[in-house]
């Protein structure tokens, strides 16, 4: 995909979360956003997802400018992006299958049977079919995240966004979920991941962006960033995160 951010800024009250973010990727498949907490990674991801409106700046994906000023245009943009949050993705009153069917039926205009089939196929593809009729309350954290990913994928999005998808999971479930994301990357899907899992970022990402205090401090290939960080902030961050 082509991704370009031009002068994106966002403040919450007096706190400037993103400061004139400008970056241009003519062709990137998977992008990892890393950095210290509070650095603006999630906010940036949410802006790309169309869930947050930047104070200034332009965003274009696949050479299409995202129109932040019209809610209808923004909603249309959101419909073609699959987002997976850290937690609470699924609706607790619906089963896994129904959770997948809801966007297909109500947003993308599928007929009920077609939605059911597509939803089931997505679950089967990720070996989740035996959980189809369970409610989220009956699933483990890893299973819930995988169902959430399946839901994001089922709508055949142009882009997949992951906001710290494994931060709330234990190591075993983390591996389950990361495996699934890697599978998606191998399939050729475009994705952006905000993560603290450096090993994962190394394996999955084409490009890594290091964000701290609302500014992009480093951009590069995983090997460049992890082996040879240019800035002191990045070096300090990596040494803390990779310590254990």
């Amino acid at each position, binding site marked *: 995909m082509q991704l370009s951010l031009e002068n994106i800024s966002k403040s919450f009250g007096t706190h400037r979360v993103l400061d004139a973010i400008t970056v241009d990727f003519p062709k990137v498949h998977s992008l990892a956003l890393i950095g210290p907490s509070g650095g603006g990674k999630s906010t940036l991801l949410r802006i790309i997802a169309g*869930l947050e409106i930047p104070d200034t700046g332009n965003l274009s994906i696949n050479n299409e400018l995202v129109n932040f000023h019209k809610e209808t245009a923004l909603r249309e943009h959101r*419909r073609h992006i699959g987002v997976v949050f850290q*937690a609470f993705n699924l609706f*607790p009153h619906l089963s896994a299958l129904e959770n997948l069917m809801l966007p297909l039926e109500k947003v993308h205009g599928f007929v009920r049977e077609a939605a059911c089939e597509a939803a089931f196929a997505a679950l089967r593809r990720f070996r989740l079919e035996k959980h189809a009729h369970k409610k989220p309350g*009956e699933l483990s954290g890893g299973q819930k995240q995988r169902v959430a990913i399946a839901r994001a994928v089922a709508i055949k999005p142009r882009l997949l966004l992951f906001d710290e998808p494994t931060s709330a999971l234990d190591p075993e479930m983390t591996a389950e979920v990361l495996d699934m994301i890697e599978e998606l990357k191998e399939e050729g899907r475009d994705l952006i991941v905000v993560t603290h899992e450096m090993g994962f970022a190394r394996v999955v990402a084409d490009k890594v962006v290091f964000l701290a205090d609302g500014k992009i401090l480093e951009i590069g290939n995983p090997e460049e960033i992890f082996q040879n960080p240019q800035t002191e902030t990045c070096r300090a961050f990596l040494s803390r995160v990779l310590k254990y």
Partner: protein
Amino acid sequence: MQPQQSPSFAWKALSFLAALALLALIFSFSFYHLAYRWNWRGVWIYRQKFLQGWLVTIVLSSCALFVSTAIGALFALARRSRFLPLRYFSRIYVEVIRGTPLLVQILIFFYVVADAFAIENRYVVGVLTLSVFSGAYISEVIRAGIESIGASQLESARAIGLTHAQTLRYVIFPQAIRQILPPLAGQFASLIKDSSLLSIIGINEFALNAQEVNSYTYSTLESFLPLALGYLILTLPISLWTQSLETRHRFET
């Protein structure tokens, strides 16, 4: 520690009877102390009046329930509206209605408002007054139910591209209903009992009929105990029905 086993049916039945027996004991002692001469036959003659009154109460309460739920839902949404005058209007409505006695509201509605709007039929006035009264309480119940849905769910709904209306219908409402039903049923039971106050404007409902029988027969307890029983017959099933609904819609959040 041993896992707790569900108590046997025999023990549950026995405990229930023991509880009833204790209550019966307390009441019989109170009545015995009164040395009252019961006059059930005198009251039995008027059984038709009781039945009629009871039916009128059912009809009034049912109508008021529908209208008040509609009013409650409207004001609950208005309370969250972005249009400020509407939001404040519903706030004032709720605070004033909940803060004043139904008795006063009935009198004002009947003698002032109905007169001004030339509503002739006192039954219509009765239903409207009850609905406006109950609607205020219901709107708070519905609002609390809607607001209990976590913000993360609204975010999720936004992320998959649902409109506000769709979010309300497919995400908020099904979950809110679980929160709303128990207090709503409680409100219906209150409504049925509150309808007894409509007797002051001469509506021929259950309580008024019981009062009339009392004035014919001077048998106060025999007139009013059936009244209590009649209301209990209406409110008890509602309570049991809600409990079964609660269990059916149960899920973990």
